[in-house]
């Protein structure tokens, strides 16, 4: 069984839940920028939840299938057509040989995840099949998909039809409140600067990618005389470079940071970062670490009701 990319889309790549345990060698997590949508798509085709899928970004591909199998799409909503007939996110779709799936107009969000019932045949490197786009390894030839690429699928099959319950279908409005903890270098910012940061609305810059999301809006001044000691840069860290315009680090980012971090997006909100696109509006809300842990546990319990069923 294979998938042929008739059209590649803007940045289509193979991603699973990412790599863990290699940051001390400079290798960041990589993996799906919205790991929640990845898991839901895999669930719909009865795959292991963290298995490799196809991450589709802003402009989607056109794909031809070589045999009967089940697929599912979660995350960003595109107008989807199978042989010219509309199909939809959040449910199992069965395709036949020579069927053509088209991702057309993007309706909301930024990244969709196409799960295939079976296993994409790509090598695993550093514990994951994900494409590390900045370091150019993993996934399909270490790069994003190009037109005429053919992906092999092992043990492709038709699976039990599933539908995502209404409560689990995300809505991406283009305007988001990101809950944050205090950053490790928050002391480099005076109270006025912090207040301004938490009360401002930022716009996602067009220069955003899988390394980081750049924000436009009111600069956040900081005290440059406070010495910054470089340390591990985790996903969701909001760094402020000399320009004062915040950058939220993401999955393909560097592993060590030297700019002051004003805040960190809490773990349970990290998947939203994968759905941000240029022009989206962002506000940040300060919460305690205890709240952050509570939200994470609550979210996992809620998800497990579906994902473990």
């Amino acid at each position, binding site marked *: 069984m294979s998938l042929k990319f008739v059209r590649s889309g803007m940045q289509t790549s193979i991603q699973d839940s990412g790599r863990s345990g290699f940051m*001390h060698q*400079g290798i960041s997590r990589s993996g799906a920028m919205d790991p929640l949508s990845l898991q839901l798509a895999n669930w719909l085709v009865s795959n292991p939840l963290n298995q490799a899928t196809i991450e589709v970004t802003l402009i989607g591909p056109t794909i031809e299938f070589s045999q009967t199998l089940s697929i599912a799409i979660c995350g960003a909503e595109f107008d989807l057509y199978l042989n010219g007939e509309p199909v939809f996110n959040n449910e199992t779709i069965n395709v036949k040989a020579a069927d053509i799936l088209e991702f057309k107009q993007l309706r909301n969000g930024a990244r969709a995840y196409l799960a295939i019932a079976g296993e994409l045949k790509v090598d695993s490197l550093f514990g994951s099949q994900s494409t590390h786009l900045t370091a150019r390894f993993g996934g399909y030839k270490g790069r994003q998909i190009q037109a005429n690429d053919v992906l092999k699928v092992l043990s492709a099959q038709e699976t039990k039809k599933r539908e995502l319950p209404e409560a689990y279908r995300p809505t991406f409005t283009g305007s988001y409140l990101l809950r944050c903890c205090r950053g490790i270098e928050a002391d480099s910012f005076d109270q006025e600067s912090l207040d301004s940061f938490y009360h401002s609305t930022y716009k996602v810059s067009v220069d955003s990618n899988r390394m980081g999301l750049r924000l436009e809006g009111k600069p956040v001044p900081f005290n440059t005389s406070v010495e910054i000691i*470089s340390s591990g840069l985790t996903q969701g860290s909001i760094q402020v470079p000399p320009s004062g315009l915040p950058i939220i680090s993401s999955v393909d980012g560097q592993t060590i940071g030297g700019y002051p971090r004003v805040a960190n997006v809490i773990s349970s909100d990290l998947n939203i970062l994968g759905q941000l696109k240029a022009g989206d509006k962002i506000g940040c809300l300060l919460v305690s670490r205890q709240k952050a842990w509570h939200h*994470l546990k609550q979210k996992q319990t809620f998800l497990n009701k579906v994902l473990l069923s």
Partner: protein
Amino acid sequence: MNKVSKIKTKIQWNGDTALTLFFDEEAGEGLTRHILSLVEEFKSTFPGMITEAIPAYQSLTLCFDALAIETDTIEKSLGQVIEKGITETTGTVASRLIEIPVCYQEAYSPDLESLAEYCNLSPSEVIQQHTQNNYLVNMLGFLPGFLYLSGLVEQLNCPRKEIPSLKVSAGAVGIGGNQTGIYPVESPGGWHIIGQTPISIFSPTAKQPFIAQPLDKIRFVPIDIKKFEQLKREQA
């Protein structure tokens, strides 16, 4: 004999799932050994809970699976391990001397002349100074396989570029501030590029993807363009 190592350390939360330890000690071999030993200690004290242990010159960041740990007590538990002092476990780590060929000729050293001018040296003096010392690999990080080196002579210190270059090629050898290093993959970068190595610093599909490990020593060996091209061919 193993010795007990204790360094004044400050612990701080870094987001909701990581703690960073800041060490009150100069970067160097002693601190690198201490950090490596600490990582071993934490991994055996908290099995399966630490997802990443990221060293930097004077810090160590430990990431956790927040669903797998007692979030309320982890900070205290770490503090207790540090308070007790740790037994250095890296006394026997073999430190290798790795020679890295670098072509400093004009075609591969776009910033050599301007850096030489800033340092009040001739380009050949810069090359001489850059190749005369062994550099210690303090750790890896930042980019895949990037080596954090120490040992750059003070005379070659030069502030980073005000406007970083959008594209620095893999293998470029640069100086930024009081650091020198090699770009392992193509990336944007703010260092002054004074040479280029033909060998791969990061080879993801190789058995040994990284050219060096912490505590190894690096020495840059100047080569001409002919040798550069020959080595480049051998790599391919």
